[in-house]
């Protein structure tokens, strides 16, 4: 262990694929660390008395501890430790906006460059699996309880993982034909290859979780039946209703909702066409993407790979206030995306054949409000037109609770989110909920966290 590694060795990410290659491929752009490289980077950790990384991490990963285990080449233990707080560590390692979370909080971040936590998190599981490690099947004797989990996305998987480890019989239902929810169908493969999700699904199944795929609760099986057959039900169904900008032209053909676009593309790549989300190929088009979150980044980079001639991202705040991960913005820029900041879209021009342009107006940021957040204000007389053959709207998602929730007395708040107590129990005592549908659209890792904590709530409720 070298106490001065952080001074001597700069922060390094593993190498990325060359841009030319990336622009055409729906493959992950980051290579993996080798052991020595990982150890060098892990050794940069200072083991702070206040582990800011862990504090900032939504699942509070024991980051300094597993970094130490990497240095000591105790990779299997690192993998165990990593799995003790996170159901999907190799996935979070790939897709979390670490620069806003652990790495952003890292003591070294400002002066020296943060420890490469995300890539090391990915490394641990990859390396451990490479060495033949598998998550252990629960050693706990079966506790005799059965729980149904609705939704095989991050929240559902997190919940199922904990329940299963505690000896509970878990069945996960999902309307899609594959495990992962948006992990599989929403996140483009250049960030997260589908084999990774599939491998995780296999591991979870091997650990004893049963998946009922292509089964939509409320359509193929009733919640009533689940309640009858199981001791508790967990709902982790996500948020799917796209937010709109409420300006003219949003309903023009060729104005695409971000998620529809991403899901359609992935369905096409996976050869699992989805009639609800058809494949939309933007080859040869001028594409304008509205929004500044990670979904917007996924869209611009997908469009580049599809062969769009020009891809522009317009966002209403400045770059510093963009919610998306800085790393993804940088990657998008490298791949040829043009960013226009401080642009508020006010209208999409076009006709039945599709959009022709987006009218945007410049903004400036207001003084910080009481929470320190600065809001964009329009600057009058600064209109401009962005020519566009396709417009993707990526303003985020609102809850999309099915109408039958009310039949079971599942209370919702004004925004449509499921209301629960601190145990994640809804107003129906046997129904628990977590993830985006409870807290609103958020990160994968927060959904995992919710699912896991909800599982603890269920176990407490069941007296396990």
């Amino acid at each position, binding site marked *: *262990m070298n*106490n*001065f590694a*952080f*001074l001597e060795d700069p922060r390094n990410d593993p190498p990325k694929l060359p841009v030319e290659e990336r622009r055409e491929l729906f493959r992950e752009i980051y290579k993996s660390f080798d052991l020595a490289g990982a150890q060098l980077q892990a050794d940069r950790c*200072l*083991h*702070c*008395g*206040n*582990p*800011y990384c*862990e*504090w*900032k991490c939504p699942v*509070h990963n*024991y980051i300094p*501890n597993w970094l130490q285990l990497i240095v*000591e080449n*105790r990779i299997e*233990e690192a993998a165990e430790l990593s799995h*003790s707080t996170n159901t999907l560590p190799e996935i979070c390692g790939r897709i979390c906006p670490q620069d806003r979370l652990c790495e952003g*909080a890292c*003591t*070294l971040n400002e*002066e*020296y460059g943060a420890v490469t936590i995300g890539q090391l998190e990915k490394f641990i599981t990859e390396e451990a699996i490479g060495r033949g490690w598998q998550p252990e099947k629960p*050693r*706990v*004797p079966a506790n005799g309880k059965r729980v149904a989990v609705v939704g095989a996305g991050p929240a559902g998987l997190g919940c199922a993982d*904990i329940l299963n*480890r*505690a*000896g509970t019989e878990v069945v996960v239902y999902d309307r899609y034909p594959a495990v992962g929810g948006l992990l599989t169908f929403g996140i483009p493969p250049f960030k997260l290859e589908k084999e990774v999700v599939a491998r995780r699904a296999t591991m979870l199944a091997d650990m004893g979780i049963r998946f009922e795929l292509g089964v939509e609760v409320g359509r193929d099986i009733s919640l009533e039946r689940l309640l009858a057959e199981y001791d508790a039900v967990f709902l982790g169904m996500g948020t799917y209703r796209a937010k709109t900008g409420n300006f003219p032209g949003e309903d023009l053909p060729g104005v695409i909702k971000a998620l529809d676009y991403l899901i359609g593309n992935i369905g096409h790549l996976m050869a699992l066409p989805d009639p609800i989300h058809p494949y939309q190929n933007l080859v040869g088009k001028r594409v304008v993407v509205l929004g500044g979150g990670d979904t917007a980044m996924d869209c611009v980079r997908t469009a580049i790979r599809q062969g769009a001639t020009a891809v522009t991202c317009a966002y209403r705040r400045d770059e510093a206030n963009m919610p998306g991960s800085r790393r993804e913005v940088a990657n998008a820029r490298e791949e040829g995306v043009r960013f226009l900041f401080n642009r508020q879209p006010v209208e999409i021009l076009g006709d039945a054949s599709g959009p022709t342009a987006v009218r945007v107006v410049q903004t400036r940021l207001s003084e910080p409000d009481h929470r320190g957040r600065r809001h964009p204000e329009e600057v009058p007389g600064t209109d401009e037109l962005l020519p566009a053959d396709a417009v993707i709207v990526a303003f985020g998602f609102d809850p999309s609770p099915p109408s039958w929730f009310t039949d079971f007395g599942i209370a919702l708040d004004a925004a449509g989110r499921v209301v629960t107590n601190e145990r994640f129990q809804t107003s129906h005592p046997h129904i628990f909920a977590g993830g985006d549908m409870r807290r609103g659209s958020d990160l994968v890792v927060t959904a995992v966290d919710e699912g896991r904590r909800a599982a603890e709530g269920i*176990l407490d409720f069941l007296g*396990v």
Partner: protein
Amino acid sequence: MSLYSPDFEKDSCGFGLIAQMDNRASHAIVATAVQSLARLTHRGAVAADGKSGDGCGLLVQMPREFFRAILAENGCSLPSDFGVAQVFLPRDEQRIAEFQARLAAEAADLGLRVLHWRAVRTDESVCGREALRTLPAVWQGFLSLPTDSEPAAQERLLYRLRRRLEKHYVQDREIFIVSCSSQVIGYKGMVMPEHLPDFYPDLRDERFHSALVTYHQRFSTNTWPEWRLCQPFRILAHNGELNTVQGNRIWARARESLLHSELLPMAEVLPAVGDGSDSFSLDNMLELLVQGGMDFFKALRLLVPPAWHNVPRMDPRLRAFYEYQSMRMEPWDGPAGLVLNTGRIAACALDRNGLRPARYVITRDRIINIASEVGVFDYDHRDLLVQGRVGPGQMIAVDLASGEFLDSKAIDARIQGSSPYGDWLRAYARHLEVEEDQEVVATPVEDLLTAEKAFGVSFEEEDQIIRVLAEGGQEAVGSMGDDTPIAVLSRQPRHLADYFRQQFAQVTNPPIDPLREALVMSLNTAIGAESNLFEERPEYARRLEVHSPVLSDAAFTALLQQTDPAFRSQTLDLCFAASGRLEDAVHDLRAAAVAAVREGTVILVLSDANLAPDRLYIPALMAVGAVHHALIDAGLRSRCNLVIATAHARDPHHFATLIGYGATAVYPYLAYAIVRSLKERHAFSQPVTLSQALKNYRKGIDKGLYKILSKMGISTLASYRSSQLFEALGLAREVVDLCFPGTPSRIGGAGFAALEADLRRLMADAYKARKGLPLGGLLKYVNGGEYHAYHPEVVRSLQAAARSGRYEDYKAFAQLVNDRPVTNLRDLLAIRPGRAIPLHEVEPIEAITPRFDTAAMSLGALSPEAHEALAIAMNTIGGRSNSGEGGEDPARYHDRRVSKIKQIASGRFGVTPEYAVNAEELQIKIAQGAKPGEGGQLPGHKVSGIIARLRYAKEGVALISPPPHHDIYSIEDLAQLIFDLKQVNPGAFVSVKLVSEAGVGTVAAGVAKAYADRITIAGYDGGTGASPLTSVKYAGAPWELGLAETQITLRRNQLRHRVRLQADGGFKTGLDVVKGALLGAESFGFGTAPMIVLGCKYLRICHLNNCATGVATQDEKLRKHFVGLPEMVIHYFRFVAEEVREILASLGLRRFDELVGQSQYLEIQKGTTPKQEALDLRPLLANADLVDGDAQICTEPRNPPFDRGELAERILKDAAPAIDKRIATRLHYRIDNTQRSIGARLAGEIARRYGNAGLPEGCLELDFQGTAGQSFGAFLVPGVTLNLRGDANDYVGKAMHGGRIVIAPPAGVSYASEASAIIGNTCLYGATGGVLYAAGRAGERFAVRNSGATAVIEGAGDHACEYMTGGQVVILGPIGLNFGAGMTGGLAFVYDPRQRFPDQVNGELINSHRIDTEAMRGYEALLRRHVENHVQWTQSSYAAALLADWSNFLSDVWLVVPKAARLDVLLEEAS
């Protein structure tokens, strides 16, 4: 209801004896004793009225003729043999008569007769206020004695008489029998020593003759001392403090049932050991042993043995004596200088560490005078035959009947030959050291995870504590402080040991350095039943011995497999059915233990290994305390040993608590299982085998135990066992009374129900398979773990506020802190709202910020950038920064980067005259909150060029700070150091930094009486640059307790107006400050907060030098990343002051002073957990109810010493022309031992003008005749020579920087210089330059931490050149043990004609060379020059003879150099 308790009283003092060795009684002996006592006045305490001392007294060989004459005047004649009962009685005729009748009746029952009652004449006009309040009537009862019995038998009758009366009047504190003897009589009182003969005119009567007097003067830590506690007692007078007295008293009681003596009806005299004071109890015990028939010398050596376990070349017969006795009684351990008087035997003995000075002279008239100092009566040196000193562990005596002088060797010879102890040991004693076999597991743990959860082990503990111990045999080191709640405030189940804070030595006795002074330490543990002390039989040697109380699997197995019924064992289960209650289980266990021992069990094993899902367990600590006390109560304790097989012992503190409450040995089966599992999981980062790992773990625990013992100043585990040296913090009365009786627990707290609930919580999760091992969070913040006061959000928001400079941002931070979950005791105290006034009416920010200091943080701990930024900020706002230990760059003295507070710490690094005079305040750091009672080490890699320069050390060489200040072993020593500092810099405040613990208030009272101007009370939560983790967690109490206790104690003792109070520890916001003020503080120390303001992120890696924020590192590259600015600190402190103003306004107060001590503005909040609710915080607020107390704040500008230093002032005046004009001047003076710190005053004035450069060589020469008081030549500067003909006391040349001190006997003396003690202990402590020539021997610790002085002396005591980092020392005569321990720099020559040096040297860090090769010529020349200079300056005929026989001399000289040094470089530097 207040935190003050008389139990915490401490005392120290001056003491001595005088005897005419041929038993020729005279009044002169008595008069000389009184004079000597008066000459020790500066070692006692004096009240402002100049009358009220803390008490003094004489124990005088019975002046038979005087009494005969006096009684004859009243027409009463005395027989040839008679006894006198000297009694303090209430001033009430009726009660006096009642007592006299009672005495007469008891006497008659014993066949004695009262001949006469005499009311002793006393003069109360010499008494001060307190003395008068409790003034007794003094009566003498004259008793007839049976003429047909031996004197010893007569004494025994008188002893029995006294015991009967004492037992009868045990509740009556107004009746006290000073002495009751036919051989000696005590005269004592609460008056100043010179007034003792005024108070007792008897003592002035020329007919009052004696051949032997012992005398004593007390320095109590409070001003309510009692007449009865004045010394001497019935045999001894004690200067010191017995750290283990609580354990000794407990064992004394436990052994009572085994005591039988033909000579003494035990039922009549037991219980013989009373409380009162530690010294009093020791006197009681000694008296019981002697009266019961034990040989006087054996008895004393049994009670206060020398170090013997690790002493090389001790006579095997003597070692056998001590080994045999070691199982019969534990040492009464702690600093002890004892003088003893039986009327026939005069004796003096020192404890093993020699922590009290005792010097003696024998005159031509065969008068011997032994005292704390030399020169306490007037004599001509030419009349002296012997000038000696008593060394550590030594005892000397005079038998007046034979006139024989017995030195230590003679006494050893007497006792070692009295029985064939060695044969007995060989026949009966066995060692239980068993070959380690890693396959043997005495108690396997089937399901490790479950056991870990059940007993509260976390991943953190496994990884950070146990793994580190097993890997390296060392405790883990960490930095920063403990910012978690104390156990009772926590929301989590905590280990029961977390409720116990280790007591530690501060001021009244020193901690020990267990690493460098290992020879006095021992963990040796004997197993087996005890026996009657009054008999010595071979079979009483029957025992099993182990070198450590931490049992291996093999040792535990072997212990239980003993077939000898003398070691019959039985195991009691600590687990019980979960349907039961914890409290009932404890009661059941007590009963079972008593039954088992009654049936003959000798080894009682308490085991918690038998856990199951439906069972709970009694925490081992609770069990051991409860069983220990149950067995004592049943009179069975000394018949058995308690061996604890527990999952609850993992870190050293866990072991220490178990042993401290009575465990003989501990078998930590779960810790072993964890070590095994770590090995199986390949979790060690070091290559260790399993058996090494287990050994390492035990070694680490052993070291930790040494550390814990030594921080209390205790040397042997036997003494520590059941000494209960803990404060319970947050335990209910019911728990303490049943399991830990006698332990202070001042605020109540968790009861059995709450502790049981915690156990149930742990057990609920333990058997839940889905619950993994908790990650922990006690050391570092972990989500979901323990709350941390500096958690990430607190750090972030504080830094944001300091950077932005916006008060709103500060308020966000303050809200986060002020509204946190209950973490500190103050969080349960709210401010009672008052009638608000407008904010503008409150005094301005600028009036408040001068109350803020930054806590001591050294350059070394902090980077220069951070250190200077703090200084600039504090100087800007009128506050003060603190240099910390390690000096300060003189370039900073005269600009805004100066640290106004300069610290004086145990290493004395960088403490020079110029440093001292450039301070507004000199702070003596007695202890620091993070690791009270421990020393420190600055590793070599942190000793950069600048640090080395400032500390007078070498770059890259490690520097050791000893645990104690070697010139503060007692309160009178502290008074002396304060006096030194006030002499060198009369303008500076002298402050003393203490750490909160039970009794700190009484220590503070003593400090106030030692003339400190300010006292800082630091909380347990103070920070550190590096400390063992368990030290950070387990020692020191919250400052709220210490501060409240100090405020009320000072006010009760009329001392508060003389001294300022500061609080320190975890201060963050204005609300903290206001609460501190309401509890009594006038000013505040901030450590961590300003560091964080400057960019520190609380990384807890300070000890690694890799601080990424550039705050706590010396690394050039990292320092570039330091982003702190003084403005940030200024912002922060102004914000705090503004918040204080807002609170003042809300209370309707305009000035800060109106807050101080006004605890009625605080109200107790309801706790947020059952444990918090059970706390009783009313004692914290008791100050508000104290009527008739002293002021709430300091009203005096200074606390000036009683001693005006008149000689020093005269010298300064005489030397003024020399200083002003720098012209050569020579002056002459007589000097005696009351003239102290001579040279310091002068040196300070010179340093003020000319800095450390001083005067031109030879400019000022001062000649002295006589005996110099302590600290002769302290802080001396270049250009000044002190030339003393006579001798000197302790601390010669302390902190000397230049100049020359020459001490030699006057011409014409008859004693040989090389055989005589000419200077005392701890000379040249922290010297940075100058030369000392002394024609004679020095005491203990010569040249300790010397870093630049050159010295030639003719012999030295133990521990010479300890921690030395520079300079040159030549010793031309015998030395003591442990030479050169911790010596990392400089060089020494030792003349060793008797070839004993190899046994005396501590070779850990030094090499010894002969000077017999060509390559050593340079060293030979250097030595020759030193010896020639010595002869030239001292005219020593002894040294001259050595010079004359140079080649023979040279062949017996050792050159001693640090291992790290290169011989050629060293020589070049030295020459």
